[in-house]
């Protein structure tokens, strides 16, 4: 463990020395002269890239991802500072800033990554050329590659003029008439081809929507600068410039993302992508069926049935719980009734005991009265019977009907 710590310390110390030495060298170079022709375009950003390459292999996850993100943004930050230096004599700040803004404008209009201070922000690994304002599109590309039935860079093969251009081949395939035994299958594949071309077109239109985002961001940046000047505010660090630039980019992006134009392009692109994926799944299903392997649609049917069965089960379970609750309540009520019966039985037994006790009449003379009562109960019972009889008499039809029903049931 101690060895391991020691190794880590040495390694970190090496990184620090590397960077310190590099910064000293850069500082000396800066003091001597402005950048010369033939020197690296973005020496500080390049240095950071080199440093990251040295550090990354020894950095554990998830720290590597975070470090990579910080380095990527850091390179853009450094590029911005370098852009300021390149823009003109450092002694004349207004001219420097004016030149820098002009260079940025040129970068947007020409698409030059070298002039673009944020050109390396979205780079990952060896991939470059994706500008800061293309971040939304870049992340979309990565996300959608997971939804495509083809490799992530498959659609690049459709770009006209490239060695891998498959568009012309695909168009030829699509124009071939479907005939013969495999007609249906050919039509299905042709449909997939058509959908791929439609998706490629929709994606191109979506991407084109971002084309002016850079210049709009620059307009927003300049507006903020003008407002700061008007308010007498000063910006004293590259970091502040960077933050103002981020705000400007967000403002331009939000304005576009809220537009109907964006919503339409986005909707078309997503819908076309889904159509491609769906057609691909259909073809895969046909192949699986031919191989007697369960298809996605068959599994979906089973999943739906399982879901419906579970829903029915849950409903029944809830109903049973309610019924169980009612049953418990009934049990309680039954218990009360039984206790009542038991109490009555005890009372009766007690009464009988009192009646049968020798000499009970003398000390409890008043209690003798109930003994005289039994004859009085008779009319009561009779009354009940009469009532019943009366009821029966009043509704003879119902009684007969009930009786009929009973007979039928029996």
């Amino acid at each position: 463990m101690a060895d391991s710590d020691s190794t880590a310390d040495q390694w970190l110390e090496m990184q620090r020395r590397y960077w310190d030495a590099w910064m000293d060298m850069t500082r000396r170079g800066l003091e001597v002269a402005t950048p010369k022709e033939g020197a690296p375009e973005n020496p500080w950003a390049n240095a950071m890239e080199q440093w990251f390459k040295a550090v990354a292999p020894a950095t554990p996850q998830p720290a590597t991802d975070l470090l990579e993100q910080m380095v990527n943004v850091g390179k853009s930050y450094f590029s911005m500072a370098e852009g300021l230096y390149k823009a003109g004599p450092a002694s004349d700040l207004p001219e420097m800033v004016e030149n820098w803004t002009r260079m940025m404008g040129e970068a947007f209009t020409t698409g030059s990554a070298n002039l673009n201070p944020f050109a390396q922000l979205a780079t990952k690994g060896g991939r470059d050329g994706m500008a800061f304002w293309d971040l939304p599109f870049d992340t979309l590309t990565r996300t959608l590659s997971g939804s495509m039935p083809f490799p992530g860079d498959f659609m690049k093969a459709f770009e006209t003029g490239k060695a891998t251009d498959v568009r012309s081949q695909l168009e030829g395939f699509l124009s071939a008439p479907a005939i013969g035994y495999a007609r249906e299958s050919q039509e299905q594949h042709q449909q997939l081809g058509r959908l791929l071309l439609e998706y490629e077109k929709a994606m191109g239109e979506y991407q084109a929507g971002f084309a002016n985002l850079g210049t709009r961001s620059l307009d927003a940046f300049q507006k903020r600068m003008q407002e700061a000047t008007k308010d007498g505010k000063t910006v004293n660090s590259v970091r502040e410039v960077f933050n103002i630039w981020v705000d400007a980019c967000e403002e331009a992006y939000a304005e576009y993302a809220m537009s109907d134009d964006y919503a339409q392009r986005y909707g078309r692109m997503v819908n076309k992508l889904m159509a491609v994926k769906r057609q691909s799944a259909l073809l895969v299903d046909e192949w699986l069926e031919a191989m007697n392997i369960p298809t996605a649609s068959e599994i979906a049917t089973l999943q739906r049935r399982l879901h419906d069965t579970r829903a029915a089960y849950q409903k029944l379970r809830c109903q049973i719980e309610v019924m169980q609750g009612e049953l418990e309540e009934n049990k309680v009520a039954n218990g009360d009734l039984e206790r009542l019966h038991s109490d009555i039985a005890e009372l009766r037994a007690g009464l009988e005991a009192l009646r049968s006790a020798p000499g009970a009449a003398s000390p409890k003379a008043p209690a003798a009265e109930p003994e005289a009562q039994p004859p009085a109960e008779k009319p009561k019972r009779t009354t009940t019977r009469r009532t019943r009889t009366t009821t029966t008499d009043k509704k003879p039809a119902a009684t007969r009907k009930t009786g009929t029903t009973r007979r039928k049931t029996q």
Partner: protein
Amino acid sequence: MTPIQIRPDEALDELSSFQRKLTHGVQNLMEIGEITTGVTPKEAIYEEDKMVLYRFQAPANVVQNRVPVLIVYALVNRPYMADLQDNRSTVKGLLEAGMDVYLVDWGYPGRADRYLTLDDYINGYLDRCVDVIRKRHRVDAINLLGICQGGTFSLCYSAMHPDKVANLVTMVTPVDFQTPDNMLSNWVRHVDIDLIVDTLGNIPGEMLNWTFLNLKPYRLMGQKYLDMVDLLDNQDQVANFLRMEKWIFDSPDQAGEAYRQFLKDFYQQNKLVNGGLRIGPHEVDLNKVKMPVLNIFAQQDHLVPPDSSRALKKVVGTKDYTEISFKGGHIGIYVSGRAQKEVPPAIGKWIDERT
């Protein structure tokens, strides 16, 4: 005259300082270890499929309100945001405010869960959780606290089962899904939701991540990592940042049918406000929400615009309606220092006054 006044030597010092912080901070990054989330002890009370109902352990020295609070979180992202770390925990704050806190964890839907509907989630899982809590505490109605999409669910539930909800608290909850500043709503206007769900089954969490990050791409995918370098020398700050990153990218897939209805009925047709919303056999009529309602929204919410939440006041049936406007964003309302001081105590006080 330009407002930019940067001397070259100062700019170089600035870059040098940045790189030095980065270089030194690498050591902290290497030593950070596993990122843990969810700090308050809790007990699983009820489980069904992948859903788990938790009850948090209250501090011993606090007198609890007799009516428990059920936190209903969104289907997107994970509910540990409400209990992220010791000094950033809405749950902890609620417990300290005397609340008896439960939480629904919806889990991670798998492909076999693609047919789960909003009816299953709200009238099924959520309703059974509410019943379990009512039974445990022998109360007719409990308090609901819905967060974000979970707030919308809580609102719908309260409209469909008003007798089971004593008080309703909604936090950063979308109600009107078509306010002019709702970017998400604009994006899905022309998207064929049926085609997406029929094609993908479940909706991948990564797709949702992309959507949310692209609401403010330059800030969320760029600037924040630059700001992070300034915090690298503090291991606690690094851990906090990584914890938040873990949460941001911890997005469960969405059950296809639930996503279909949510996107179509809520985002595309705005039925919660316009009317005509049905979930399972029930009509969702917000006028039936007669219990007291506390609506908390964030002033700088980029995900749920404040006006989307504020719309509740006009459509809800209760006469006891309270609003809290929090100075912060959609995430800050759970985790910022100000939120810890202001939000849970305010919720506790509001509930105590009504139970």
